[in-house]
Each structure stands twice: as structure tokens, then as C-alpha cells.
């Protein structure tokens, strides 16, 4: 049951690396969105430190979203998806494998790059740990929710724009708990509740999102 999903996972990583430039485009978008804020709001270090967690979280959320409209599109176009539906392994496992590969080339690089951006935004050092832990727990949930959205919009008119409308409202809890935890740490409060809620969301997402994505993929193929 695991073997086909693992094969799909490896294939997706390889494709991301060879065809889509790996993590470079999504990281570029992530950094650019963060850079826009000091340019718009001015370089006041105190202000930037105050809003840094929120900026980094919103940028990570939007960068994830814009990469997701193609998560199933090429597989849909070349018929891979039809084969996956026919395969004996459950479709939900395949969706999970695709989500994992997607997160490794988009979510994880953003987590690793976030300290650099925090540095540019003058975030105090003691918040780094919470920010990164939150992103580490939160970005996989973003990807998992996004897989459902990416499957729902397969073949839709103006799918990319539609995906933003569908997925961003679903991201609200992740954003609140993630940015909230970092904000709590920034203000010397306990960040643990926010991080725990993020972990809970990740578990719920792991359990439900692959099923939702599988249902949406079946709807796309009927």
C-alpha cells in the first residue's frame, strides 16, 4: 500500500527538481512579499519588529497558495491521474504523497529561510524559535488544505484565482495560531498554546485532507 505512494513521492521530488527549478520560484515569491512591507511602511525598526511575525506568516501563506494551483494540473493533463485512480493503492495515499513532496520543495525551504527574513525585519532573537516551530507545524497544514483546493479547481475556468478564494478562508485558523504564537513570544507571553493548536490542526489536516483531496480528484475525473 505504501510502495506506490512512495514511488509517486520520489517522482514528484525529481520533477520539481528538474522541471520547475525546485524551491527557487516559491522562495523568490516568499522573500519578495516580505520585502514589500518595509518598502511600503518605512524602515522603522520598532514597527517592523512588531509586525514581523504577521508579515512572514502572511507571505508564507500566500506563497504556498500560488504554488498549489498546479499541484495536480500536469498529472491531470497527461493522464497520470487516471492511472492513479485505477491503481490498487488508495487515492488518499497518493494525495498525501503529493502533498509531502510539495511541502518538501515549498514549505520546508520557507521555514529554513524565515530566520533570515526575521533578521531583516529586526525581530528579537528570542522569537526565532517560536516562529520557526510554528512555521514547521503550520506550513504542512497549509499544503494539505491546499491539496484539496488544488484538486477541486482541476479544469476550472480561472482556476488559479479561484483557488485563492477557496483556500485562503480555510487558512484562517492556521494563520491565527501561527502568527499568534510568535506574537505571544514577542510580547513575553506563553507561546505553547498556539503551537499546540497548530499541532492539533496538523493532525486533523493529516487525517482529513487526503480524503477530501481524493474525493475532489474523483469528482474531477468523472
Amino acid at each position, binding site marked *: 500500500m505504501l510502495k506506490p505512494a512512495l514511488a509517486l513521492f520520489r517522482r514528484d521530488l525529481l520533477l520539481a527538481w528538474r522541471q520547475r527549478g525546485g524551491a527557487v520560484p516559491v522562495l523568490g515569491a516568499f522573500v519578495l512579499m516580505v520585502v514589500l512591507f518595509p518598502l511600503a511602511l518605512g524602515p522603522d525598526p520598532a514597527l517592523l519588529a512588531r509586525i514581523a511575525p504577521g508579515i512572514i506568516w502572511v507571505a508564507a501563506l500566500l506563497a504556498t497558495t500560488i504554488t498549489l494551483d498546479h499541484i495536480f494540473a500536469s498529472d491531470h493533463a497527461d493522464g497520470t491521474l487516471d492511472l492513479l485512480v485505477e491503481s490498487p493503492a488508495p487515492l488518499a495515499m497518493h494525495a498525501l504523497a503529493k502533498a509531502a513532496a510539495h511541502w518538501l520543495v515549498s514549505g520546508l525551504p520557507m521555514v529554513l529561510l524565515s530566520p533570515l527574513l526575521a533578521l531583516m525585519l529586526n525581530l528579537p532573537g528570542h522569537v526565532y524559535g517560536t516562529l520557526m516551530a510554528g512555521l514547521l507545524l503550520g506550513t504542512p497544514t497549509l499544503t494539505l488544505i491546499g491539496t*484539496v483546493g488544488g484538486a*477541486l*479547481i482541476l*479544469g*476550472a*475556468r*480561472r*482556476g488559479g484565482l*479561484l483557488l485563492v*478564494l*477557496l483556500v*485562503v*478562508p*480555510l487558512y*484562517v*485558523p492556521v494563520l*491565527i*495560531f501561527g502568527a*499568534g504564537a510568535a*506574537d*505571544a513570544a514577542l510580547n513575553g507571553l506563553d507561546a505553547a*498554546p498556539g503551537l499546540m*493548536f497548530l499541532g492539533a*490542526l496538523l493532525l*486533523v489536516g493529516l487525517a*482529513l485532507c487526503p480524503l*477530501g483531496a481524493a*474525493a*475532489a480528484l474523483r*469528482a*474531477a475525473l*468523472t
Partner: protein
Amino acid sequence: MTSDADMPELRAQRPVSLANPTRFFRVANRLLPWLGAATAVLFAVGLYLSLIASPPDYQQSETVRIAYVHVPAAWMALFVYVLMAVASAVGLIWRHQLALMAARAAAPAGLVFTALCLATGSLWGAPMWGTWWEWDARMTSVLVLLFFYLGYVALIDAFDDPARGQLSASILCLVGAVNVPIVKFSVDWFHTLHQGATVFRLDGPTMHASMLAPMLVMAAAFTLLFFVVLLWRMRGLRARARIAAAAATAAAEGA
């Protein structure tokens, strides 16, 4: 899978009470005039009670009258979403076209109720809290709900194949139904974290009967109006399916 298009004719022989579309629409059409009349009467009574017969609140004075449209709109915003989620689940599990149709027909009404709830809430907030918008837990949750409705309406019409749009939007509706309580919880948490400058409660300690009566009558009027709209829109969807079916047969004959 059967599409919307051939639904009424194919399923006409099924011996199931109101789940049978032909029978459903026959009963619905007989019901509609009565429902419409009852809605009009309830609105007349409700408006009389809320604008003329009820006293001003001792704290909120005359602005409390805004509540008689705001609160029913908020109730309907939630009620319609719950109804859509149940109908989508029934429609997805048993492939019941009538249930999917009901969910689809309800969505624009839910969207209107949600927008009305936000707009009237804003008009109430301006004199009472001194601000048109407050990032209060309830307002934020309703705002997110508005985006769920918008997403549903946008997704259902985004495909060339209407059956596909229907299926995808139903899945989205269920995903949203799981998410709505989580959003509500997270927004409550957000609110306690960012304790705002204005601390307030919408509802007073207890509600006097003179205020409860207009509220309930208006809520009943809103509910009946919703069902009138729902039945009309379902009829519209049936006509649309027939047009699509006719176009499909015409195309098949032409080829």
C-alpha cells in the same frame, strides 16, 4: 453517473415520497402561494412590532431596532450554511440530485443574508461602539463565512460540465463545514489574545418579551422568505437542466 440534465425524467418513477423530483415540485408549486402569503403577513406583523410597537432599549435606545433585522440575518447566515452542508452530504453519499440542487439553490440566499448581517451589524456598531468595523470574534467569523459562500458560488459555475461543478462545490461545502467551527474557535482565541480597546457584549443580560416578540416574528419571516426563494431557485435549476438536456440532444442529433 447521471447528470443534472436527465434528472427529472429518469427518476420520475421512483416510489419515494418527496425525494421524487416530479412529486417534490408538484407539492412545492402547490405550497408556494401559501408560503408567499404567510411570508408577507409575517413581515407586516414583524415590521409593525419592530418599528412601532416595541419600546426603545434603555441602554441602546432606538438603535436596538436594527437588531430585529440584524439578528435574524445572522441566524439565517448560519442556518443556510448548515442546511447546505447537510444537503451536500446527502447529495454526495446517495447521489441524490434533489439534495444537491437544494444546496445549490440555497447558496445565493445564504450569501445575501451574510452580507446583510455584516452591513446591518456595521450600521449598529457605528453609533453604539463608535466604529463601523470591529475585529470582534463574531464579526470576523461571519466575514470568513461570507468568503465560504463566495467560494461555493464561484466554484459551482466555474466548469463547463454542470455536474462537475455541483460535485466539487458540494465537497467544498463539507470541507467548509468542518472548518467553520475551527474558524470560530480560532477567532475567539485571537480575540482573547488581542484584547481590544472596546469591550462590549451584543446581548444584554436578559431580553424583555417586548423585544423578543419582534425578533422571533422577524426570524420566522426571514425563514419563510428563504424557503420561498429556495423553492423558486430549485425550479429555476430544473428549467436550466432541461435547457441543457435539450441542447445536448439537439447537438447529438446534429452530429
